[in-house]
């Protein structure tokens, strides 16, 4: 009888041990490897991974997550970092990580080849993060649904018309970096007081504050909303997918995001991370974006801009103050103000 008990316990132990040995085999920290957290679309991430592997022979272990998730993970792992490089995703979490000393300074020899906005990002972040692509904020409308409304919005101000009541969709800035960019953009265009007046007026037309920043683009494509506010390249992806949508660059000017790249502090494969960093800034690497159906504007001056991409030089871009609006204090203040003054308003 004792034997059976012993046997049971031993089986349990053996089970756990087998599970261990099955699963513990590969934490990719071996030599000649690179652990990358990737913040853009799966396809683009994969294209980058295989291209870099082919070029250098360095094996890349890539994990794709949204940039907010990557930030949360990098922060949680700070005591014993797992990743080497964090590539892609909107700039705010990168700035936040730089502010919190989660990433390291690096000056790439490729810096001279970059657009001004990319370098400005690098300077503002005290050399801890750099721009790899950029995309402007805008809105779009479903061309079939808009017919019955009798309007054709061209500016931010046009979105306030009562004809579009309950027809505008945007994300909740508390959860989405896209919507926070909108909040900061409106404030920078109109000033804080007028900006909040605008958002309160817009609130009457908003049918839903979505959680994810790209959701309004999808809802437009499905016909669930007439107007959606999102990054223009996200809307373009829908247009390329043959959705009946027109993309609009607002006439008052608009803000933009800078997709960024940072090296994680305490990276186990620091040399490879730097190699990747330099490579990711070359035109050869940056043109992979358009091939993977992502239509952001690349940061290297000599990378060909995809023809579908919204032309940044034809869009009136505001002089976006990433340092101010990216700081956690200002963000917390604006978000709680938006929560109290706008979101809780009755329709």
């Amino acid at each position, binding site marked *: *009888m004792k034997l059976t008990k012993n046997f049971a316990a031993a089986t349990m132990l053996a089970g756990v041990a087998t599970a*261990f040995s099955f*699963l*513990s085999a590969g934490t990719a920290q071996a030599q000649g490897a690179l652990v990358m957290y990737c913040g853009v679309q799966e396809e683009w991430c994969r294209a980058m991974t295989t291209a870099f592997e082919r070029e250098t022979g360095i094996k890349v272990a890539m994990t794709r997550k949204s940039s907010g998730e990557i930030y949360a993970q990098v922060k949680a792992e700070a005591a014993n970092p797992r990743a080497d490089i964090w590539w892609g995703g909107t700039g705010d*979490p990168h700035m936040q990580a730089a502010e919190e000393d989660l990433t390291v300074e690096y000056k790439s020899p490729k810096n001279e080849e970059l657009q001004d906005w990319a370098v400005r990002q690098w300077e503002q972040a005290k050399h801890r993060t750099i721009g790899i692509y950029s995309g402007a904020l805008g809105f779009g409308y479903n061309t079939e649904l808009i017919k019955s409304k009798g309007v054709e919005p061209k500016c931010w101000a046009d979105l306030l018309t009562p004809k579009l009541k309950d027809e505008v969709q945007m994300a909740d800035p508390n959860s989405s970096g896209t919507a926070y960019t909108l909040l900061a953009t409106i404030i920078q265009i109109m000033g804080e007081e007028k900006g909040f007046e605008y958002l309160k007026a817009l609130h009457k037309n908003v*049918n839903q504050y979505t959680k994810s920043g790209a959701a309004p683009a999808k809802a437009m494509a499905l016909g669930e909303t007439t107007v959606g506010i999102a990054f223009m390249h996200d809307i373009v992806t829908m247009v390329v997918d043959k959705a009946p949508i027109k993309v609009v660059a607002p006439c008052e000017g608009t803000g933009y995001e800078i997709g960024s790249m940072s090296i994680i502090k305490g990276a186990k494969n620091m040399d490879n991370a730097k190699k990747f960093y330099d490579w990711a800034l070359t035109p050869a690497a940056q043109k992979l974006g358009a091939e993977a159906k992502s239509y952001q504007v690349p940061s290297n001056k000599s990378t060909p801009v995809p023809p579908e991409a919204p032309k940044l030089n034809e869009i009136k871009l505001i002089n976006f103050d990433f340092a101010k609006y990216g700081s956690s204090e200002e963000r917390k203040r604006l978000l709680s103000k938006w929560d109290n003054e706008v979101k809780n308003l009755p329709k």
Partner: protein
Amino acid sequence: MSRATLGWIVLGWIGYAVLPWYGFDSAVAPTLSEFVLGGSGLVLGMKGAWWLLPIFAPLLMLLRPVMRPEGRLADWLTASGILGLALILLQGFSIGLNGWTFGILKALFGEPGPHQAGMGYGAALTATSFLILLCHGLAARGWCRGDAFVTSSIGIVMALIVVFVFFPVSTILASAFGDDKGSFAPILFVMKFTDRSIWGLDCLSSDLRCGVAWNTLFLGVLVAFGTTALGLAFALIATRTSFRFKKLLRVMSVLPIITPPFVIGLALILLFGRSGALSAILYEWFGVPRSRWIYGLPGVFISQLLAFTPIAFLVLIGVVQGISPTLEEASQTLRAKSWTTFLTVTLPLMRPGLANAFLLGFVESLADFGNPLVLGGNYEVLSTKIFFAVVGAQQDQGRAAVLSIILLGFTLGAFWLQHAWLGKKVYTTVTGKGDAGIPLPLPRRVAVASYLAAIPWAIFTVVIYAIILIGGFVRSMGRDYTPTLDHFLTAFRVERADWGLYFSGSAWNSFFATVKVAALSAPLTAAIGLLTAYLLTRQRFSGQRAFEFGTLLSFAIPGTVVGVSYILAFNVPPIEITGTGFILVMCFVFRNMPVGVRSGIATLSQIDKSLDEASLTLGARSFTTMRRIVLPLLRPAIVASLVYSFVRAMTAVSAVIFLVTAEYNMATTYIVGRVEAGEFGLAIAYSTVLIIVMLLAIVAIQFAVGERRLGRRSATANAAPLAVQAAP
């Protein structure tokens, strides 16, 4: 001394003197000999890792009862067990990756001090044997009637819960009381806790919104009632009627549980959304204006009802089956009408099942994240709020922790209420005595109500799944219905290369990892869950309630919080397992264990203890009793927990989002990525494949475990009395 005790002493020595003490990193020890002997605790201790040497002492102490067995065995075992565990914990937690971990040690001995990596096989084995020897010692002192199997089981389950639930959860809940820099800030906590956006009641008096806590509570209660009622209807139809499509009904009721997240929500939008198929028909035929009613409470309610009814069904079917017809027959003999019998005998006997189904529905609704994300609209619930407090633009982990505490409070309340409602009544209906009765046909109105609830619901489920099925094969659901196989080819392309098959589709990687992790975690979950249920219902020990609550804890906490807490707890020594598949398995085991526990408890509380006692009187030990008597009677619960844990491991999102790595990517994170990118077709195609895999797995599990054969006759069987047995 028993051979078991001796065996564990040997294992303890092996763990210390033979196996590598540290890390699962194969890079540390390149050759096999170094790996086996050179990395052991003993060798490292002599080479300078002095903090490992004290562990030698309790191991030596264990040799004394081996040499002189007539001595006080119990005392020696207990003492060395406690000492050994304490020493391992002490060195593990005070010496970290970068030196001393406690400020006071830094001050006393100077910085940075010694450093060490995470524990490995050796440390795990030695710690386990100390724990089990301690339990053997306690059994020898007379605990749990001297049954070493019971004490060891309690010890192991408790240790696992402490390590994989209490430890990580406490690390993150502690951050509720800190500010951004991590210093203690109770006032900030009170401010965050009493925030109006959480507790506001504005919706009662005006058209403003109510607090997110009330929203969550309201939705949870609604969903719990709905799922329990529907689950009961399905269970009654499946067990008590001669409905012709029972099998089909069963499959369909289980379908939603095996559906990856987002897919149900997506299908609902395609059906009821403003441009949805049904809305279009209603508009064109009846002039019903298109609206967005699906976004908000109605949508979340419907999708959660779809998703969680199967859980209620799985819990309830075992219970309904187990109800003895004898009692009902007695009631009828006493001239009660069938409706009165149902109301006063059958229904009260189902109370453990109803209570557990309700509790699970409520807790599931609270923790659900995918459905509110897709369909929530402006109706906010705690789980999404928590997720975006961690990963959203706010990046406020403290706030997430505060919200988690509220969520936990609700779960705790539900748990307490359930206990209060069940009270101390006895629900035993499966006894050793033969059941002569035939299950009563349902009273008319109950049958009609069940059919009315279940059949439209089943049809609704079919429609939803038809949409999902079609979605994988058309170019773009809701817009372009050109048939295509592109989605499947992108995800699951297989090419024939010279050296064999090459899986070039982009989904294969995550697919294999997911199946592997799910297949590993399911049996572990079921084993630990049912063992726990057995301990909770059949044994009496102090701290039982706390123990029971502990098993529920990780289930109640939203996945996001569990995910982050697992990183915080397991990314640094002593237990350094992030980045491995092991952490995924453990996460699933402890998140899904409660279902095993609950369905086990519900089923066990029906089985008469005298069956166990008879076995014990005949000389069987508790382990044998469990294997030969309890387990066969537990088959429905085994199936429920195996199925549930397998399926959950394949469909869970929020917890694993932080735990996946390049090597262990999960199917759901892949799907979420696709949904985020707007590639619904690909997401749905992948989901279809997952659904088929899970269906196969469920059939396999059913087949492997088998049906429970109670000595009950079905109403349709003819009158010849069958040999009555409690168990085959």
